[in-house]
């Protein structure tokens, strides 16, 4: 695929359960160009984290059924042997998670966890790996890394732990970094530090990033392109400007207007999306968002309830899954 470093095409992830099949991701497609940052935004149950884990090959094959294509630099990861994907994890592609305390093993020194990450992919001695670990810690702004390397995770603060996770993810110089809610568990002042650090490191290394978050503020700060997910589908996709200033999907609109904002004087009342997110086992018919949609009355023949809209082009590079988009560039 020319131009794209990561391309996800028609990704489906199903989890069969006793109550029925959970359709966590239903036909997600997007691509990320090398060195850029894509954000996947959505609420819990939208399928954003499952998409990330499917790319990384982290879903338990005994629990999840994955189909579609995930091209990384031209190779389809879903066609590869599990052990080949395993070898790419942590070296070509890395991931960091929401809660750095529970994501680090509580019983091992952070240095040992970093050394392990190096030595599983690189043929270096223990002391070389340790030097690399100290170097990695220094790069993510941990003071006195020579001493910190022997600390256990519980001896570090939340922000320091997330720095350790970042150091561990970047230690083998991956081309792709997936960050799943990297700042959600952190205080805002620390969140600002971690965002700055990630953007700085990306500038130095040119790593392609996929940031998964529910926080539209974080997206505005970090991403160039955005996928909005709802009910396992991508419902709007475009550049950050498209999504924030030329919003074309009522769900995105609702999301933006229900965020409490610090910057503008608004009425005390927020304007929330009514209702609750859909069950992924029994999805609504037609457009998955229609039971909560306020623009529904503008579409004729009750089309929203009966027919699922395609992702239609609003403008070049900007698509939305809504019957109000006529596919010729007009916004609702």
């Amino acid at each position, binding site marked *: 695929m020319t131009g794209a470093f990561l391309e996800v095409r028609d990704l489906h992830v199903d989890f069969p359960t006793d109550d029925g099949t959970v359709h966590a991701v239903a036909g997600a497609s997007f691509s990320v160009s090398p060195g850029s940052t894509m954000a996947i935004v959505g609420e819990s149950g939208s399928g954003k984290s499952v998409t990330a884990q499917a790319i990384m090959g982290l879903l338990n094959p005994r629990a999840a059924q994955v189909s579609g294509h995930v091209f990384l630099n031209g190779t389809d990861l879903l066609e590869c042997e599990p052990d080949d994907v*395993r070898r790419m*994890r942590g070296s070509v592609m890395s991931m960091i998670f929401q809660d750095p305390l529970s994501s*680090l*093993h*509580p*019983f091992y020194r952070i240095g040992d966890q970093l050394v392990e990450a190096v030595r*599983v*992919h690189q043929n270096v001695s223990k002391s070389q790996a340790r030097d690399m670990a100290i170097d990695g810690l220094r790069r993510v702004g941990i003071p006195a890394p020579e001493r910190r390397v022997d600390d*256990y995770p519980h001896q570090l603060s939340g922000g320091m732990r997330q720095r350790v996770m970042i150091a561990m993810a970047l230690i083998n110089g991956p081309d792709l970094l997936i960050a799943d809610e990297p700042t959600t568990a952190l205080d805002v002042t620390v969140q600002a530090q971690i965002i700055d650090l990630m953007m700085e490191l990306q500038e130095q290394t040119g790593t392609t990033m996929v940031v998964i978050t529910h926080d539209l503020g974080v997206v505005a700060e970090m991403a160039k392109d955005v996928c909005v997910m709802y009910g396992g589908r991508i419902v709007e996709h475009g550049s950050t400007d498209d999504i924030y200033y030329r919003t074309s999907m009522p769900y995105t609109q609702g999301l933006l207007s229900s965020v409490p904002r610090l910057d503008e004087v608004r009425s005390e009342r927020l304007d929330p999306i009514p209702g609750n997110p859909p069950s992924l086992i029994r999805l609504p018919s037609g457009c998955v968002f229609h039971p909560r949609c306020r623009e529904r009355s503008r579409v004729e023949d009750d089309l929203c309830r009966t027919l699922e809209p395609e992702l239609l082009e609003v403008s070049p590079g900007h698509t939305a899954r809504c019957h109000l988009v006529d596919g010729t560039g007009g916004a609702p």
Partner: protein
Amino acid sequence: MGAYVLRRVLIMLLLLLLLSFAVFVLFSLLPADVARLTCGKICTDQTIELNRIRLGLDKSVFEQYWLFLSAIFVGRTYGVGEGAVVCEAPCLGWSFTKSEPVLELILDRLPTTIFLALGAFVLFLIGGVLLGIYSALRRGGWQDKAITGVALVGYSLPSFFFGLVVIYFVIIRWQILPFPRYEHPWDDPVQFVQTMILPWLVLAILYAAFYTRLTRSQMLETLGDDYIRTARAKGLPERTVIGKHALRAGLTPIVTAAGLDLAGLLGGAIILEAIFSLPGLGSLAISSVTNPDQSILVGVTLITATFVIIANLVVDILYAYIDPRVRAS
């Protein structure tokens, strides 16, 4: 860490002291007349009275306890003159039915019990943990169901029944092994193994069932933890993820249970020792009940309790070794 261990050892010594006192008082409250019990078949009131004085039973419980306690450090002489019996330090009491110091009796029986306990311990721990891991990895599959099913049966089998069934089939019906006759391994290694193999296996199967279930549930819990996902995201091979990251995290309750089980076994597997006629602490305890000898019972109880207390200490120190967060607090 050093201070922690020291504190725990001090507490342990205090606990032992309290415990020995409790055991001593408890046995002295029993309605049995020890002086009469120790005097044998042909017995006059005079000898009973003499025994009473020899054993110090005419004194108060506290004085008796003091005599018992001091005997551990300085030894003790029972009675005066001709019939006096000298029990040298460390003296844990004197058995008048067997005319031997209690400690010697115990030390004589201890190796058998230790061999029985350690052998079974190694077998059931390795077997149980491995089966538990396997079962957790095949969760929901037929292997998992078979293992959990068998474990449930093993868990609920009474040991005397299982032991007797095994003896009946293996020794009497099929005659695979000779009748058990215990010899120390340094005297007759072949006979030792032939005698021990069945009680080892019986104990191992009974205990392994529990460890299979415990390990399985521990593994299932830790395998869902975030750091396991991190380990996989690092690209670690599955055997490192499970054998190193998941197992160590789930180890703590297994260590606790194993420590206490080992201590319990060291106190004598009473039923199995009786069934397989092994001369261990368990059979010593039984014989001192059927042929009443209170000093032996006090001694065995104390030794068993000491094992449990030491096991607790060792388990707690192991905790701190396994989990660095314990070291901090």
